[in-house]
């Protein structure tokens, strides 16, 4: 049974004539490495939001782990799928970098020692530990992106959806991110990367889904 399954899913944003996503059918396994490509406005981010239940399809159905996505609360979806938005500013809401990563861990009931350990571990991955006391909004766009990513990775979800994860980060950290994600995948976490960055997705295109005009025009892997 596929981890995520979409059957003839369509979605049109309010006030728009053209469907953002049109009759998409896909099956994604939990341990897969998937790259989603396509031009701006081809429906990649909409697809991610539909999978996460942030948008409700106007037709078709989506199941997650065998159950319709609509039956899950966002919290339950968050326990299975980690999601990093294209714009990190929309994911940061704490008063320090440390608190940003610790936020979900605290609510998961982790001990202070565990939280310290995990925050250090995931912030160190991207050399952000020294910035732990900074206000996230004061960081550069690339650093914000990595903080948002660290906060999601620290929760150790079963599947990751990353929307343009390399948009503002430097070449060095891009390479680092590539290796980290590769390692996370090896340990059993599925990864879906939405990106225009062909160098970056080269490592994630075990399966490549190419979208155009809201439709999947190529699904190879």
């Amino acid at each position, binding site marked *: 049974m596929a981890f995520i399954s979409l059957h003839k899913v369509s979605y049109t944003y309010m006030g728009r004539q053209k469907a953002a996503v049109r009759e998409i059918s896909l099956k994604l396994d939990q341990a897969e490495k998937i790259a989603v490509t396509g031009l701006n406005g081809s429906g990649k981010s909409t697809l991610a939001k539909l999978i996460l239940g942030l948008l409700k399809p106007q037709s078709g159905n989506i199941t997650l782990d065998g159950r319709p996505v609509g039956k899950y*609360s966002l919290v339950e979806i*968050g326990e299975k799928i980690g999601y990093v938005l294209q714009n990190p*500013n929309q994911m940061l809401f704490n008063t320090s970098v440390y608190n940003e990563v610790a*936020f979900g861990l605290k609510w998961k009931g982790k001990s202070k020692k565990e939280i310290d350990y995990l925050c250090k571990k995931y912030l160190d991955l991207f050399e952000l530990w020294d910035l732990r006391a900074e206000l996230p909004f004061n960081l550069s766009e690339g650093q914000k992106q990595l903080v948002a990513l660290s906060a999601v990775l620290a929760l150790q979800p079963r599947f990751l959806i990353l929307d343009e994860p390399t948009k503002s980060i430097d070449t060095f950290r891009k390479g680092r991110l590539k290796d980290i994600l590769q390692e996370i995948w090896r340990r059993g976490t599925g990864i879906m990367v939405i990106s225009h960055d062909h160098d970056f997705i080269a490592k994630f295109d075990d399966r490549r889904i190419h979208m155009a005009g809201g439709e999947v025009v190529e699904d190879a892997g």
Partner: protein
Amino acid sequence: MQVDIRTKLLIVAIFSVLALTYQDPRALAVIFLLNILTLLAFRVSFNIFVSLKNFIFMYFVLMIIQSFFVRSGEPLIKLGGMYLLTTGGILYGLSIILRFLILAGSGLILVDHNAAELLLGLVKLRVPYEIVFMIQVGIRFIPVFIGELQNVFNTIQLRGVDLRKVYKRKVLRVYVSIFSPLLYSVWQKAEKLSILLELRGFRRFPTRSYYRDISMKKSDYVIICLALVITAALVYVCHKILTL
């Protein structure tokens, strides 16, 4: 028939002033009735009325709360020596509801005009451009801000916090913790916007040109005259009602 935005702004102003002037629910009911007729005359889509149904519960809560604090009239519910609900209170609550409906309803008169037309109308009414621009930014900023807030709440839930199940005191803690960063991000956005505006020559010259133009037609003057006559008649009717 396309009515000029300035004509509609005048009608909105009349309804707003009337709604704030009268307190008697009978007078407000007459104004509300006229408000509905005006909306029908301007062919405002009834779908918009449907969206107001979400506020019905709020109206009733408001009515009950008001009636607790207003002691006039006959007591309906009494607890010991305390009046919990009075006819005067209910009527006062009703006035507030009607007032709210008139204000919301008069705002609906403008729905078929876009923000650019509204702003141009204000400019033509000689409202200072700085104020018009602030209104413009406000109109555009509200949906952006709501969208961002929604994203933050989605992120919170995706990070494992079910705000519906969390104990009330803790929910408050979450809200308080996100409030200051959110405020800071709004302030940052405003600052960036002001820099971008200045870089693009905002207020470099004392006047600016407009791509669009609006002009008053004969029909607008007829509508304005009609509105003034009806307002005078309405004031007379309300006065009669109040002296009954």
